[in-house]
């Protein structure tokens, strides 16, 4: 940053939501600035006012209920753009033209009934005064810029004809359409796969640096800001509580909350013994203006003056590094080892043994009556020992959940066998299967949709007890439910509540308690933490681990995030398009990944440490994962692989054990050499 050109400066912004019975003070005096060519990260848990702040500066919030009560937004040092009305001519010429936004849900952020070309072109015609023909050319150029293949023919297509990642590229093209000076990416990659996320952010970074555009990345992912941001603002309860250069914030955090966040996120380069320390409690609901530091109720490093002195102001702690925390001697030991006293007991007995599992779904073909089979699983081999956690990782659509559903016999596999303690599950009839159902339980991804909204949470947890006749009589059920509630860290007094009264983390605890009710031996966890906030993620991961030790459970842990899996897994299997491409002990896999896909997956995950990030080699992943209906010949991965050879195109590589590392298998011909 040789020349410091201020693009936007926000001063003391305040936004409230005025509802009928209550007012939510969402943004409480936020100030920040962004210079040209700079990438600024805004981080914090959900509900901290990150998005609302950005939407307020452009006056995009619907009013009522939102009301901006104070503050200034200076664009290029000129007039306060808040003084323009929310639908005024002046602000409309800024929106889209000078300041553009990319939103979280790419699929719903595009209008389903207009072609993507038209959606980008209308903004070009409006702000750049181009005619239809010129606009079309500009749009095609933009689509090419964001790597949409064959832009001419895709111009006339509708959003539903694109994947989520493609839609987000289209959103970027739309945002870049009029060469804005400031780009705001509001959780732009949260809904996407890690690999797509990396591709999108690389594209953004490239475009921004090329055109000297300022970029604000709003995210809850500390890794992303560590990898891409120059400066960072940490937000909590509608305030900026710490700001500064990325290196300073990660190396020398000055606020208890920032330290808490860093302590709670799993890192790819972690030692397996590092303990995740969750931040207990929840962010405040912001319905009252707090008299002291809003983080105080959750803070583990509070001083007496935090209670007595009122809300702390931002103070300079180093060159350009500000924090609002009274405690000047915070404990910054970020890598605390967990108690190694309780060791896991993994026996050699295989509790689950999946052999050559095939699963196909009949689908209607293009022609009438023509039927083809969508082969989702193509010979999956896995085993799980008693007391062990096996992480199953891959991009969405690779068949992870299908494996889980086959094990639960929610799907009847079309081939292969699933042995549970030596019993062939695929051969059992529904009735014969029932005793096994209580032994194999399931924890779902979505804690919001997977609980019956009309049952009380006590009844939800108690249901398996009744179904499997595990407790007779009301009193016995009540006692057992109470026990389960305590086991997952919930107060039994809440048992009469409905699921919607709980937070995401509490709901996932209910999901776990329900799964534990029938005293299973094997629990299949399908992305159990991916819908949760980072601080809550750590709580749930810790809970799962401690329960495993106590009850000697085995977990099949499905996730798309390799850093989460690392913490909990003993072994890890990487899946691509219905096949296992690499399987190894946790340490082996992270130390010495062999398959190019594993390497790319690992490389796609940013580590919340800017210094580590700078020295990391990035392995790009070409294109997107094809649909299983268009599975490439030979090694499914070869079209995206940077080191594919002739052999990869011709034959399907088999899983082979590495000579130097017993127990480490990979399916890649390149490693034979």
């Amino acid at each position: 940053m040789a020349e410091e050109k201020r693009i936007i400066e926000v001063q003391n912004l305040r936004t409230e939501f005025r509802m009928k019975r209550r007012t939510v003070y969402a943004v409480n005096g936020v100030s920040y600035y962004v210079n040209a060519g700079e990438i600024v990260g805004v981080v914090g848990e959900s509900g901290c006012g990150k998005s609302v702040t950005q939407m307020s500066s452009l006056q995009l919030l619907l009013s009522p209920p939102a009301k901006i009560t104070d503050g200034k937004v200076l664009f290029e040092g000129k007039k306060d753009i808040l003084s323009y009305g929310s639908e005024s001519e002046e602000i409309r010429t800024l929106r889209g033209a000078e300041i553009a936004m990319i939103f979280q849900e790419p699929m719903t952020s595009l209008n389903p009934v207009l072609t993507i070309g038209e959606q980008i072109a209308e903004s070009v015609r409006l702000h750049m005064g181009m005619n239809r023909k010129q606009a079309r050319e500009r749009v095609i150029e933009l689509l090419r810029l964001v790597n949409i293949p064959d832009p001419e023919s895709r111009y006339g297509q509708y959003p539903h004809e694109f994947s989520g990642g493609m839609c987000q590229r289209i959103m970027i093209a739309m945002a870049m359409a009029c060469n804005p000076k400031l780009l705001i990416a509001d959780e732009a990659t949260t809904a996407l796969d890690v690999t797509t996320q990396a591709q999108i952010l690389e594209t953004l970074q490239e475009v921004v640096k090329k055109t000297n555009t300022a970029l604000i990345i709003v995210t809850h992912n500390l890794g992303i800001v560590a990898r891409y941001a120059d400066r960072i603002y940490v937000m909590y309860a509608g305030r900026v509580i710490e700001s500064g250069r990325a290196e300073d914030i990660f190396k020398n955090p000055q606020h208890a909350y920032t330290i808490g966040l860093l302590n709670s996120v799993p890192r790819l380069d972690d030692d397996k013994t590092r303990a995740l320390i969750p931040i207990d409690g929840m962010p405040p609901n912001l319905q009252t203006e707090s008299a002291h530091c809003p983080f105080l109720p959750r803070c583990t490093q509070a001083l007496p003056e935090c209670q007595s002195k009122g809300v702390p102001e931002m103070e300079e702690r180093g060159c350009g590094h500000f924090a609002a925390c009274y405690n000047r001697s915070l404990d910054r030991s970020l890598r605390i080892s967990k108690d190694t006293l309780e060791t896991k007991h993994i026996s050699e007995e295989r509790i689950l043994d999946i052999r050559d599992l095939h699963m196909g779904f009949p689908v209607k073909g293009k022609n009438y009556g023509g039927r083809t089979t969508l082969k989702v699983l193509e010979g999956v081999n896995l085993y799980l020992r008693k007391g062990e956690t096996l992480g199953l990782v891959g991009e969405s659509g690779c068949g992870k959940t299908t494996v889980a559903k086959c094990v639960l016999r929610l799907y009847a596999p079309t081939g292969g066998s699933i042995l549970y303690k030596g019993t062939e599950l695929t051969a059992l009839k529904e009735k014969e299967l029932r005793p096994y159902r209580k032994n194999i339980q399931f924890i779902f991804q979505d804690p919001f949709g997977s609980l019956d909204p009309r049952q009380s949470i006590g009844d939800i947890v108690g249901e398996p007890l009744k179904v499997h006749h595990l407790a007779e009589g009301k009193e016995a059920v009540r006692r057992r439910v109470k026990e389960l509630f305590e086991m997952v860290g919930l107060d039994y007094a809440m048992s009469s509540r409905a699921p919607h009264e709980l937070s995401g983390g509490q709901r996932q605890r209910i999901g776990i308690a329900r799964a534990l009710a029938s005293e299973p031996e094997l629990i299949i966890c399908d992305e159990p933490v991916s819908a949760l906030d980072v601080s809550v993620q750590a709580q749930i991961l810790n809970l799962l681990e401690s329960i495993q030790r106590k009850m000697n459970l085995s977990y099949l842990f499905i996730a798309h995030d390799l850093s989460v899996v690392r913490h909990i897994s003993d072994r890890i299997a990487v899946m691509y398009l219905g096949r296992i491409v690499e399987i190894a002990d946790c340490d082996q896999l992270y130390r010495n990944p062999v398959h190019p896909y594993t390497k790319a997956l690992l490389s796609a995950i940013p580590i919340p440490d800017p210094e580590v990030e700078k020295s990391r080699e990035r392995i790009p992943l070409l294109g997107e994962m094809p649909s299983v209906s268009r599975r490439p010949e030979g090694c499914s991965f070869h079209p995206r692989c940077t080191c594919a050879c002739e052999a990869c195109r011709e034959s399907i590589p088999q899983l082979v054990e590495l000579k130097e590392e017993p127990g480490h298998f990979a399916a890649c011909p390149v490693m034979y050499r």
Partner: protein
Amino acid sequence: MGKYIIKRVAQAFVVMFLVTLISYALIQIMPGDAAVIYLGSDAANEELLARTRAEMNLDKPFVVQWVLWLANFVRGDFGKSFHFHVPVRDLIMERLDITFTLGFFALMLSVVVGIILGITAATHRNGLWDNLINVFANVGISAPSFWISLLCIYIFALHFRILPVQGYVPPKKDLGEAVRHMILPCFIMALPSIATMTRQTRASILDVLNEDYVRTARSKGLKKNVILYKHVLKNALIPVLTVLGMSIASLFGGSVMVEQIFNIPGMGQLVTNAVLNRDIPIIQAFIVIISLVIILSALLVDIAYGIVDPRIRIAKGEN
């Protein structure tokens, strides 16, 4: 899209087939012998009765009767009215275009007025206009139309004397008078569907305004009206189309009462009298024609869905 339409048309044919079966079954279900009803006092003549039954195919098995009746029906021979003793076809043709004209204008009125009121209400949410339109829509849905009719006749015909009380004038005879006679019945017929269209349009516009893509459109700096008419309305009209399809059916139901009140010689009046006189052929023809109209309108609505919503166009085409 082509495949989707073909499939829907095939379904429509099956439904029509079943409708004819059920409506023909009326002759069996209704108490009394159809031939006796047809002949009235002449039914005492045994020989005549037997001949009539043979003419009406009543002596044959039910399925044969139905097939013969259907064959005639397709050729346009709907049988003879029991009461008027003239071909049902002639009776219906005289009246069909009156009811259709009335129905068509009522439909146009409900679409145009309903959507305009819906947009106005949605854009003035919780304002004066929204409240006024809401009151109007609630009255339109809840107040019985005979009461509204009487009220309107009292106000416009008796008090201000600007519209005629009742009656029908063919447009060929005097266009101006024809229009003047149509205004009140058209409005009364349309009122319930104007009200439902208004409410649906308002609700779905407000829904769509909360969608993420509207926020995207605003972030692009588009003008309010461009957002409303280009981005919001097309999406909001998809559920309105469903309501429209249902309105067509209720409009024809409404015609029966409105024609009685305003003494309009249309289908509704004909069929009311037919029911009172147990004039089965007229009732049968009416059921089939009404079903045809409803099935056709459902088909048009389905096709319109495909035109408005590209997702349906593709998805249904593939299935």
